[in-house]
């Protein structure tokens, strides 16, 4: 985690959520599943954990932006759910600052959960699999993979 910059706990003004709720929600799901599929393709998500997600439905809701993403994992791909039916198998709900703190590895999701800043509802074991899968992502694994892309151009061959 970064030593120099810390993400403070904050809550966006209420009107943002009121507007956000009225906007279409599918772009969030498309963006999130695209990112998750990219991560899976890079091989940073453990395959044994991914297999346990098959057929499960998820919701990620950001309270203070009014945004919500519903998606599923099926046949090796994360897919957006445009018309989610019924309660998801697992739902993560929190304000934006909590999600950012978790993403930056600044705060422990357990801490936020126990302090009631992060809500996890549904299948507890599935929640644990997802939490541990995200914890197991090693940022240093990204580095050797990403710069390789332009090197595949013919003129860069040594």
């Amino acid at each position, binding site marked *: 985690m970064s030593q120099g910059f810390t993400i403070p706990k904050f809550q966006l003004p209420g009107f943002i959520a009121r507007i956000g709720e009225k906007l279409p929600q599918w772009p969030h799901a498309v963006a999130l599943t695209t990112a998750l599929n990219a991560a899976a393709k890079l091989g940073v998500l453990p395959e044994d954990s991914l297999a346990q997600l098959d057929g499960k439905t998820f919701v990620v809701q950001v309270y203070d932006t009014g945004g919500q993403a519903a998606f599923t994992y099926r046949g090796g791909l994360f897919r957006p759910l445009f018309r989610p039916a019924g309660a998801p198998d697992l739902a993560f709900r929190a304000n934006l600052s909590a999600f950012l703190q978790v993403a930056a590895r600044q705060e422990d999701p357990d801490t936020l959960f126990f302090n*009631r800043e992060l809500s996890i509802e549904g299948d*507890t074991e599935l929640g644990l699999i997802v939490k541990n899968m995200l914890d197991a*992502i090693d940022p240093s694994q990204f580095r050797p993979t990403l710069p390789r892309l332009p090197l595949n151009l013919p003129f860069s061959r040594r």
Partner: protein
Amino acid sequence: MATLVTLRILSRPFAMDRSALPDLVCPAGSLPALKAAVDNGADAVYLGYKNDTNARNFAGLNFDAKTMADGVRYAHGKGCEVLMAINTFPQPGRVADWRAAVDGAVDLGVDAIILADVGLLDYARSRHPQQRLHLSVQGSATSYEAINFAHREFDVRRAVLPRVLTLAQVEHVIRNTPVEIEVFGFGSLCVMNEGRCWLSSYATGESPNTVGACSPAKYVKWDKKPGQMDTRLNGVLIDRFADDEPAGYPTLCKGRFEVQGETYYALEEPTSLNVLEILPDIIKIGVKAIKVEGRQRSPAYVTQVTRTLRAALDSLVNAGERYHVKPTWQAELAKVSEGNQATLGAYNRPWR
């Protein structure tokens, strides 16, 4: 009596050089957590396989063969020891799984294997005579007689003490054994009947000794309703929280129950152990290693706790008698504490 002993400990002259500091032993439930521990000043990390041979067998946690090898290489590359926890009890018909885990740990070149089961200690000692062995807290050895037995029979070099002894009792153990003593310094507390606790089995049929997990997640249900959240373990109501009340993981020992018309934490309150205040005393009595609980927690937790305890230990070298607990350390640890309250656990209890 306990006060007298504490005073005696405190009145001794106190000089500290770096080599006298106990090892800081930190938890690693994943490769990023291991790296966080190593990078923030752990002297040793402890970890386990992705199966029921260790007492933190939670879904998605721990190491497979590849991450294990990567982890050992990373830690050793930075001068940090790796301790492998194989601290559950072999189940009927499956002894071979636990023995294979021991053999695997030796092949990986870990610095020590942490074992609880007497049969497995015997196997490890006879099959791998050169391998350093530690007695796990799950081995439930609270007296120097028990520890000396493990030393005599299996050449155990270090024992992790269950969190039930006062500081004076820990000192008494240390004075009567050649075995190095490791104590817990930070982390969630429970009823602490380590290695002998069957409360989880009472509700679910599964416990740390049998499946490697207390209150396995598949039995846990967070039931959110307007204004309250119920937590249940295999259908048994463990606790009920108002919307703004800090919640805890529903282990049976930390639930609120109705006893004779009163509802309260009848067995144990959700708290965290925090020894910052008595760190000089722990060192003076000759503790060899201080362990941080929490392999199930995230890399962020490992970073925060390791960094803080490292700073506190290092400050002892320079500050000596002038050691004082910095408010920023307490704030950092309070944030990640379960139940948002920290105690000295059994270390300063009046009972003996």
